[in-house]
């Protein structure tokens, strides 16, 4: 049973391209962006429409992108370039300017390729690798000020304290709603699945942010009202899976559908295309410096290296979310040539092993050629977890 408010969100999503085209015809300007450390609040506060661009799961677009960027880049990057080459994506075609950040160096390269081959107007935001140092805050604040000044030129408007305060308040509410909704999917008798929540989160990449907040509130209300009502059929609770690792963007259903088909139940994630961007974003005041501080102090993206394992916030967050959502196994998804997450796979496995959580690394692309191999491995993993759960050996 699909929730009514989820249906509404999906319907709004289908209507969005035409809505954007109409808004642009009426004079609105659209910023397509990609990157973990790019504060949408700043775009929104300037009266611009932010769209988070990028899709996954299409081998055709990956091949197309690979003509411009290398086959040694991850498929997400290649597909992003493929979207520009294909020239049919409504969100790219409805963007007037593009912004990328340098969290992942491959994203930075994507920006260069897009600028060169597709003659797009591109802005780049530098991101400090030493994000935890005091001097990094100064640098990142200056980068964001530079970004805002260029957006101001583009928008023909100045960033005001009031408008930034409004945007921050709006985004804080969106984050709160997402966190609240996310809790429902992990309950023992869920009305909504993780997959549905994942789709809802990703719908927010392109929907009008005020409308999106209303839609989230409606979903939250429906979930609150439905507590104790009929649950999702087949919500097997014996293999509670947590997903970590590389990005799983809209359109990439390969791994998620395999887990679902095999009776695993995803109950949490720390993906930058999932929950993690919304966790503990604390913008203390409506200033660019406060936005910079908050974005640097979120859970760090895997592409931002942290040199002390014992105090790594990403690892700490992973452990706490696994505990919170009572997961009893982690599927660590890595895309080929996604160095930020691939390089950490063994390390993460060793860390989780110490707290009794098994980890299965799946190293893959969007091609269908490894589906059966993945299926076999996931099946064995789920079987192992279920056995452990039944025999009480679970963590």
């Amino acid at each position: 049973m699909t929730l009514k408010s989820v249906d509404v969100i999906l319907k709004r999503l289908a209507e969005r391209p035409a809505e954007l085209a109409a808004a642009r015809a009426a004079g609105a300007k659209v910023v397509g962006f990609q990157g973990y450390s790019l504060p949408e609040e700043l775009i929104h506060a300037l009266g611009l429409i932010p769209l988070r661009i990028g899709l996954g799961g299409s081998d055709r677009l990956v091949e197309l992108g690979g003509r411009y960027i290398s086959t040694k880049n991850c498929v997400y990057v290649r597909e992003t370039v493929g979207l520009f080459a294909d020239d049919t994506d409504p969100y790219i075609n409805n963007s007037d300017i593009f912004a990328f950040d340098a969290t992942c160096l491959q994203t930075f390269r994507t920006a260069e390729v897009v600028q060169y081959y597709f003659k797009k107007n591109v802005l780049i935001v530098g991101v400090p690798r030493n994000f935890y140092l005091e001097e990094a805050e100064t640098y990142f604040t200056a980068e964001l000020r530079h970004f805002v000044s260029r957006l101001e030129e583009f928008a023909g408007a100045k960033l005001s304290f009031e408008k930034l305060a409004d945007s921050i308040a709006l985004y804080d509410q969106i984050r709160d709603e997402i966190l609240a909704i996310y809790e429902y999917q992990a309950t023992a008798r869920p009305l909504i699945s993780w997959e549905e929540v994942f789709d809802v989160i990703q719908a927010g990449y392109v929907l009008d942010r005020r409308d999106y907040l209303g839609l989230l509130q409606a979903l939250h209300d429906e979930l609150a009202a439905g507590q104790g009502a009929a649950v999702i059929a087949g919500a097997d609770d014996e293999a509670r899976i947590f997903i970590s690792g590389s990005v799983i963007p809209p359109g990439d259903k390969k791994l998620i559908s395999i887990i679902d088909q095999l009776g695993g139940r995803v109950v949490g994630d720390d993906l930058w295309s999932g929950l993690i961007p919304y966790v503990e974003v604390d913008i203390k005041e409506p200033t660019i410096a406060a936005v910079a501080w908050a974005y640097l102090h979120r859970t760090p993206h895997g592409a931002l290296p942290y040199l002390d394992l014992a105090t790594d916030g990403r690892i700490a967050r992973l452990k706490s979310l696994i505990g919170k959502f009572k997961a009893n196994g982690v599927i660590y998804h890595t895309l080929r040539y996604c160095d930020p997450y691939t390089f950490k796979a063994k390390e993460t496995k060793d860390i989780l092993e110490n707290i009794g959580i098994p980890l299965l690394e799946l190293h893959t692309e969007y091609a269908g050629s490894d589906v059966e191999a993945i299926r076999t491995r996931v099946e064995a993993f789920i079987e192992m977890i279920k056995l452990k759960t039944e025999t009480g050996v679970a963590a």
Partner: protein
Amino acid sequence: MNEIPRHIQLSSVGSEQEYFRYPEDIREEFIQTDDIEFRDGSRVTAAEVWEYLTTVGPVKFPNLYDTSNLFTGRLSRDVTLPFTLKHNYLLMTMHERMTKAKAQGHPIVFVQGGQSVDPYYAAGAIALRPASTGIWARRQREGLTRNQDELEGQQDKQKAYNAISFEVCNSAGYEHIQEGNVPADMVAPYTALRCSDVSYGTEAHRHGPRSDQVKLLLVDYPLDHQKDKDWAIRYFADNVRRLIKNIDGLTGRTTTEDDLAREIKLHNEGRRLSVEIADLWWSAIDPPTNGKDRRDLFQLGGMEVHGDPVASLSILREAKGYIERRVRDGHKTKGVQDNAARLFVCGSCVFPNDYRCEEAGGIIVGNDNHWSDITTIINESGDPYYELAKGVLSYPYEQPLPERAKWTVEQIKKSRTDGVLFLYKWGCNTQSAIARLLVDEIKAQAGVPTIIIEDDMTRTQTEQLQNRVNAFIEMVS
């Protein structure tokens, strides 16, 4: 002293391996050449270098005297260029020299290629990049044939692949540092756009067996028009300050601005010498050296390959005079064909086999990686931290593509290049990503043919790579 092997019986194939020897008839002239000076004030005479290369080296490192043209690191046959002998001496003695320097209180800091090392040496450390780290580790193993040396090298690499990922491009000395073959005190490279593995590779050391003994630090190199942003320059300068403070923590001394200014001056001399040598080399009608010696000479301006900038500088100073004379006299280099196709290499830190390119009728005349940093002279007046940061952030190789392409085209034109090879290492995300873009721009601006080739960086299994390079040489000849 063990007997010097002239041949080694390869029992499995029943054949004998021939080894290269420096010819006695060059001895008298060579021993009249300059001493090598070292950072600690000591010197070694040319006669001592000769003695080492002809009696000690062949026993300890028969693999280096292998004569196969498949061996990219084969000793240069251009024996009348004293530089080549002294350079090889410094590489062969890496283990002894570095061990001695560490015992003298110089911390060992692992860095990356293509970056300046002025601040590390200013603080009294020794900065070693992956190649130098590998050389130090491998010079600890004596009496190996080339195949044995290659095998051991591959086994080392597997340890890094197991600990990090098989997709790590070259593992950057992880195995040597974490296995303790190289007693590094710190891993502290510039991050930079040149290689995504720098950051993640450094991070990987946090879970290695020596993680409690090796200090980790990233000198964070900001991206996107960084040289034009005052805040980016100040940020990088702060990172350099932090680096020096951390090295001071290891040495127990306090590095001053004057120390840094002095070191910048010293390194600038090396950079200038390399650029002058390059200009001389490129001005010659016939290449005054073979491709491998050219590369070693040009790269020496980075002042890091020997782990002793004073030693590098001393042989660089001497080499310039030899190149001047060769250019003036119209010297023809043995092994380089007349009207050889002149190739410029762009991309990752990989190279085709110079000797085999020359056999095929080409010669590599330049490269962008490990060169753009050397062509960048640091301003010697003002705040040395700020000026160093400003210079480092202006490395052409690290600039947005239009600027990088513009600089590359300038080098291509100066070196009278006939064709451009863009080579990238398998798994090198950031260089491979812009391979097509850069060569398209080079074609548009310089009008020279280009080719993109992926290299797996193995030293012996390079036939497919060489086939493509040779076909390209044939085309541009």
